[in-house]
């Protein structure tokens, strides 16, 4: 009889604090738990009583890696509640900021957090020892994302100060935006190189029959607005989101797990979902690069998410360049909100998947109720399912190698565990 326990108490190269527990008895998997021990920070509770105008600056603090996702989701929810439609130039600027966040977050994940797994290295510092130029190039790409965020976001990339309900506090000048163009042209070339590099990695041979859920927009590769669509025929507006999706407080993992109703089914959000649902909306250049890297129109191998992320970097660099080239300063930086009691919904594609917001405000504009469903909560069930499959397929590996493979499988999702709006501490049941 053999009894194997694979445990990682503190997962590395993920944003936030997570852990993993797998128990195998006589080659049968008894238990798989992807745990989150990020302490709760109670955002949805302390948002109550705050003014709708303060909410975006507060929700940004849910996550330092993807603050735009949390700002934009709450801003759009408030605009939805108050009946504000922002004009096209404001919309474009928002997309430009979001492109910056994607470039920064994806470049960080692809090169610094995920690539080392495929190269058998502990981190990007090791990688820099063997290939300093590559790491420098990766850092420049990441920096260009941050530069975009700084240009649109009011001078800083982490918790930008310029986003507000109704638009921006100050819109950037044409010169400020056009100054980004040469770097974006370089970034497009760097993105092609990235796709070629990661497309050549060795991928564990695992496929999953995922339910993909992503935003879909009629004109573009959806990032900051769209309908919620699945590959199984779901196609809904945001107010229906909670009719179809929910979270539960699961005892075995002690974490809120997202699921699709009915039947509490797991689903998958993030790059693979967006790619599958919006393949036809990819820029032709991104689509042909994806083909060259060997990707079909649907990718079901979670380990290939690194290639899809690289394709998405190219997509948003192309998008950002087009926006920067066509940018005209908007007539007014923002539309002045008129307060009323209302309910609003917002949802955007954070780099790691859809991030849903719902707020109820009173006639003074103070929040009565807040609900935020971050992407990693939605992926948790699916991550455990993937781990189950990865462990089953890799029983022959040594404990250390199997542990690493499991970590890599979790990192496939670029989990952003610091979105501790309501993630819980993991308690291991001792037998």
């Amino acid at each position, binding site marked *: 009889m053999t009894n194997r326990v694979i445990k990682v108490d503190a997962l590395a190269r993920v944003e936030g604090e997570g852990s993993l527990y797998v128990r195998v008895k006589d080659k049968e998997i008894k238990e798989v738990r992807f745990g989150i021990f990020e302490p709760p920070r109670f955002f*949805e509770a*302390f948002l109550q009583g705050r003014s709708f105008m303060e909410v975006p600056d507060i929700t940004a603090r849910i996550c330092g890696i993807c603050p735009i996702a949390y700002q934009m989701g709450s801003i759009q929810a408030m605009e939805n509640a108050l009946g504000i439609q922002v004009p096209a130039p404001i919309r474009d600027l928002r997309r430009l900021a979001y492109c910056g966040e994607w470039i920064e977050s994806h470049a960080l994940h692809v090169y610094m957090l995920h690539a080392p797994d495929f190269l058998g290295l502990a981190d990007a510092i090791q990688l820099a020892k063997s290939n300093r130029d590559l790491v420098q190039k990766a850092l420049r790409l990441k920096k260009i994302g941050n530069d975009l965020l700084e240009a649109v976001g009011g001078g800083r990339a982490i918790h930008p100060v310029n986003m507000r309900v109704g638009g921006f506090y100050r819109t950037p000048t044409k010169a400020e935006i056009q100054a980004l163009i040469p770097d974006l042209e370089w970034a497009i070339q760097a993105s092609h190189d990235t796709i070629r590099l990661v497309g050549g990695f060795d991928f564990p041979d695992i496929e999953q029959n995922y339910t993909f859920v992503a935003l879909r927009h009629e004109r573009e590769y959806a990032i900051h607005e769209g309908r919620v669509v699945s590959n199984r025929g779901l196609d809904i507006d945001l107010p229906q989101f909670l009719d179809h999706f929910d979270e539960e407080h699961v005892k075995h993992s002690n974490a809120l797990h997202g699921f699709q109703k009915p039947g509490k089914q797991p689903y998958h959000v993030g790059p693979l979902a967006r790619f599958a649902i919006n393949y036809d909306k990819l820029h032709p250049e991104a689509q042909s690069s994806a083909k060259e890297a060997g990707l079909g129109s649907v990718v079901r191998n979670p380990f290939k998410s690194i290639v899809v992320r690289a394709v998405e970097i190219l997509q948003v660099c192309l998008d950002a360049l087009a926006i920067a080239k066509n940018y005209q300063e908007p007539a007014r930086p923002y539309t002045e909100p008129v307060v009323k009691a209302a309910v609003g919904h917002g949802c955007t594609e954070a780099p790691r998947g859809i991030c849903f917001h719902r707020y109820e405000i009173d006639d003074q504009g103070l929040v009565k109720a807040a609900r935020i469903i971050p992407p990693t909560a939605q992926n948790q069930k699916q991550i455990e399912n993937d781990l189950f499959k990865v462990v089953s397929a890799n029983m022959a590996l040594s404990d250390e190698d199997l542990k690493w493979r499991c970590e890599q499988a979790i990192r496939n999702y670029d989990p952003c565990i610091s979105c501790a709006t309501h993630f819980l501490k993991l308690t291991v049941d001792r037998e």
Partner: protein
Amino acid sequence: MTTRAKPRLGVFKFSSCDGCQLSLLDCELELLAVTDAVEIAYFLEATRKDMKGPFDVVLVEGSITTPHEAELIRQIRKSTKALITIGACATSGGIQALRNFTDVNGFLDIVYARPDYIETLETATPIAEHVAVDFELRGCPINKHQLLEVLNAFLNKRKPNIPHYAECIECKQRGTVCVMVAKGIACLGPVTQAGCGGLCPATHRGCFGCFGPMETPNTGALADRFLGELKQDKGTVQRAFRSFNANAPAFREESLKHD
């Protein structure tokens, strides 16, 4: 010439958003120089390598919100020569310290279906309430250039050059017209420590206090101005002092005056 071992750096995270430790990775132009100068011995966000102390310098992000965290920070303190806290969470408790003004059980009920599964402390507190801290670097998030300055100073055993004056000085240095004087926009700049570079007024909005209270801030006078000339209500004034540095003593005391 003998080569000395590189100083060993550890980066630890408590309750927080990850943004301040990300600031180190956001030093894109300087990161490789940093890794040339120090050995990164513990930095979970960046590396699988999990080396034990002792450390020469430890950076700590986040506030203490669980019994486990309170124990862990004591162990870390024992294993390092210098301990530097980075960001509003670590230096004042962060946004999650809003629980300090209420009953945390009420918060639990709002967010969680099964509050009995959750282990949390009544309060979110800064690191310095638990262990001795050698330097506190403010900001929500920290300024990465200030982070490099502090690291550099500690590695070279000198005092970091981090100003404690008001945000207003940065507006003057930048040539930003005062938004409160010229436009009547409420601004926490006069009581907030400099460090961000004067971003908000340059973006046509008031400072909202990311860097916490400056040395000896006159919060009362500013609150009077918000209430008087700017005609704000008490709730708005209270909330202005109750954000990312709500638990910093000067902001905390001012906010309590406006219940």
